[in-house]
């Protein structure tokens, strides 16, 4: 079952790291209402991460629960895509990241509902409703900023340009993903990109933004090879658990 463990870990780590980044906005968002919305989305992502990591722990069968997986792995053991670990930057960068991620998660979870793995299908059924809201929220801001003032347009375009290369990793199908697809557990990532572009491109167009050209495609997150940002994120996230191993809270 190690293929399935590894695959569920990828999904769970995406959600966990995204939640951690979004939570960094708490009390720092441009408006009070937006503060609540970002915290809301962070909580959704964390909820999905908990379900997925708990399941991954059971699949592994080595006695690691959601906490052990979240707090006691080093960056080389994390399987999240690079997109979610990128720093928040300004509000436009955060919205570009969230928009690209949520549009992907939406399609991912939508397809997973028919997975041959029942547990995964059940988790996806719950998560896809939340994802729909995340896409909606991020798309709204991409349009607003893109079609806002000259300055907000400039920043939104810069944000999309910055984030775009990292989206290719979401649709890279490696051997493990291919095996998982063969068993009917989850669609191969490469088969999701057309639908993703179908969701993303119209929003960019309405926002008067130029869709970046495809080119440089950094990857490695799925193999535990991350950007320099992840270990700092983990150091902050894990410090208490590592200082007091075995403590209960």
């Amino acid at each position: 079952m190690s293929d399935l463990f590894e695959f569920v870990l990828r999904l769970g780590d995406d959600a966990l790291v995204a939640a951690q980044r979004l939570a960094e906005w708490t009390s720092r968002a441009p408006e009070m209402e937006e503060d609540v919305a970002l915290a809301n989305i962070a909580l959704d992502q964390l909820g999905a991460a908990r379900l997925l990591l708990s399941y991954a722990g059971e699949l592994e069968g080595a006695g690691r629960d959601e906490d052990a997986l979240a707090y006691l792995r080093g960056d080389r053991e994390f399987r999240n895509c690079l997109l979610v670990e990128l720093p928040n930057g300004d509000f436009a960068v955060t919205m570009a990241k969230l928009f690209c991620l949520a549009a992907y998660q939406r399609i991912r979870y939508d397809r997973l509902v028919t997975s041959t793995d029942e547990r995964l299908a059940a988790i996806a059924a719950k998560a896809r409703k939340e994802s729909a809201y995340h896409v909606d929220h991020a798309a709204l801001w991409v349009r607003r900023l893109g079609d806002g003032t000259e300055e907000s347009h400039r920043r939104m375009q810069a944000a999309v340009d910055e984030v775009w290369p990292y989206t290719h990793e979401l649709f890279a199908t490696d051997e493990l993903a291919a095996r998982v697809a063969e068993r009917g557990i989850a669609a191969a990532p490469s088969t999701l990109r057309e639908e993703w572009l179908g969701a993303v491109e119209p929003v960019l167009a309405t926002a008067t933004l130029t869709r970046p050209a495809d080119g440089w495609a950094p990857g490695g997150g799925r193999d535990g090879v991350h950007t320099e940002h992840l270990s700092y994120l983990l150091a902050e996230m894990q410090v208490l658990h590592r200082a007091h191993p075995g403590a209960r809270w």
Partner: protein
Amino acid sequence: MSERSERAVPLWEVFVRARRGLSHNHVGSLHAPDAELALRNARDLYTRRQEGVSIWVVPAGAITASSPDEKDAFFDPAADKVYRHPTFYEVPDGVAHL
């Protein structure tokens, strides 16, 4: 709040009808740049995205309120004129919900 941000982020009144509720009730207010965002924010702040609720948002400026100064004239009925109150009719049996 400065004049500029007041103009950019107007106040909205929020009315929510609960899933099994019969009417929309005023639940509070919030600041949002337009109706679309006001609706989304209201969903986060006042309904926790429960399914099956209905939300109305109204710009606070669109609401005309009765003035507290005219309270007496508006709401204090002349209790001495009993013929104002429909209490002199016999209600037939079977009209339970009049």
